[in-house]
């Protein structure tokens, strides 16, 4: 089975694959021995199938730049705050990105 991230990169940089029809892409993925999850995600356009294979990582909304009245705050950044732990696949809340 070909590595899924490598295959995604290969599709992304190949003009005929990037814009291939669903049938053409399915054929190419079969020949490349893509994982079942990638083949299903490509066929349906549903990325959720990929998370089953790769694990789900939350990505929050884009950076908002509107900060009326906040930009001038004299708040010192909290250097000691720890980031929250990485989510465990299958236990995370749905991200608004997806």
């Amino acid at each position: 089975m070909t590595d899924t991230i490598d295959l995604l990169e290969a599709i992304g940089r190949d003009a005929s694959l990037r814009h291939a029809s669903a049938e053409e892409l399915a054929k190419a993925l079969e020949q490349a021995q893509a994982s079942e999850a990638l083949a299903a995600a490509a066929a349906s356009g549903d990325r959720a199938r990929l998370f089953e294979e790769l694990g789900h990582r939350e990505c929050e909304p884009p950076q908002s730049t509107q900060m009326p009245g906040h930009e001038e705050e004299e708040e010192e950044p909290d250097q000691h705050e720890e980031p929250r732990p990485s989510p465990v696949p299958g236990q995370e809340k749905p991200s608004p990105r997806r």
Partner: protein
Amino acid sequence: MQTPPAPSSGTRRGSLACVGLGMTLGSHLTPLARSHIEQADVVFAALSDGVVEMWLERMHPDVRSLQPYYREGKSRLKTYRQWVELMMAEVRAGKRVCGVFYGHPGIFAWSPHKAIETARAEGYEAHMEPGISAEDCLYADLGIDPGRFGCQHFEASQLLFYERRIDPAGYLVLWQVGLVGDRSLARFQTGSAYRQLLVELLARDYPLDHEVIVYRGATLPIEKPRVRRLPLRELPQAPLTAEETVVLPPAQSLRPNIAMQQRLEALDELEKAGDVA
């Protein structure tokens, strides 16, 4: 051609490069942005997609995700300041730091600009490397040329927070409508009542049946762009995520500026007379 060896300096000093990864995995990363990533000592990542983050991890052994610093109920400004401090701490420690942001690192992104400004103010080398942005993809996918009628861009909340002038003869592109009106900086989404306020404001310049386009570019190469069209009045009730963008096509035709055209004609006549003389 063989790559010449990179120049080496006697004393290692920290540096910062903020680069864009583009929008679509595998399709948009420039050779120079990749080089910044590969040559860095440490890479920080604020990306659109967990799968894209995994792809970045293939390019460098020390990729540190900035995503875990986001938290619902926590001010995003605090998060972004932490991002700046995390990057600067490594720069001050003498590391070559690369901050990798999805799309273009300087568009709708506070922390890359702030980090570069801070690094330069402290005497470190700092550079921003552009990437293919969501805006670039939008023009291509929707067939819009911003030069044709002109094009205004606003983060949607700015229209509610400040007095702005909308020109309905050009395109209007509204970013982060899913978060419109969030004054707390701590929410990931606001509801239909907030969008209703936005629609009321837009209704000063656009009829409520004006067609708006809701757009999301592809971040994975197996995806297609998502394009929905609906009347403006339905925007509050439409399902909308934070990364979707709302486009309002022109609602008026361009009106000739007769006074300026006459003055231009007079200038042309003067030039012509000067040529003859």
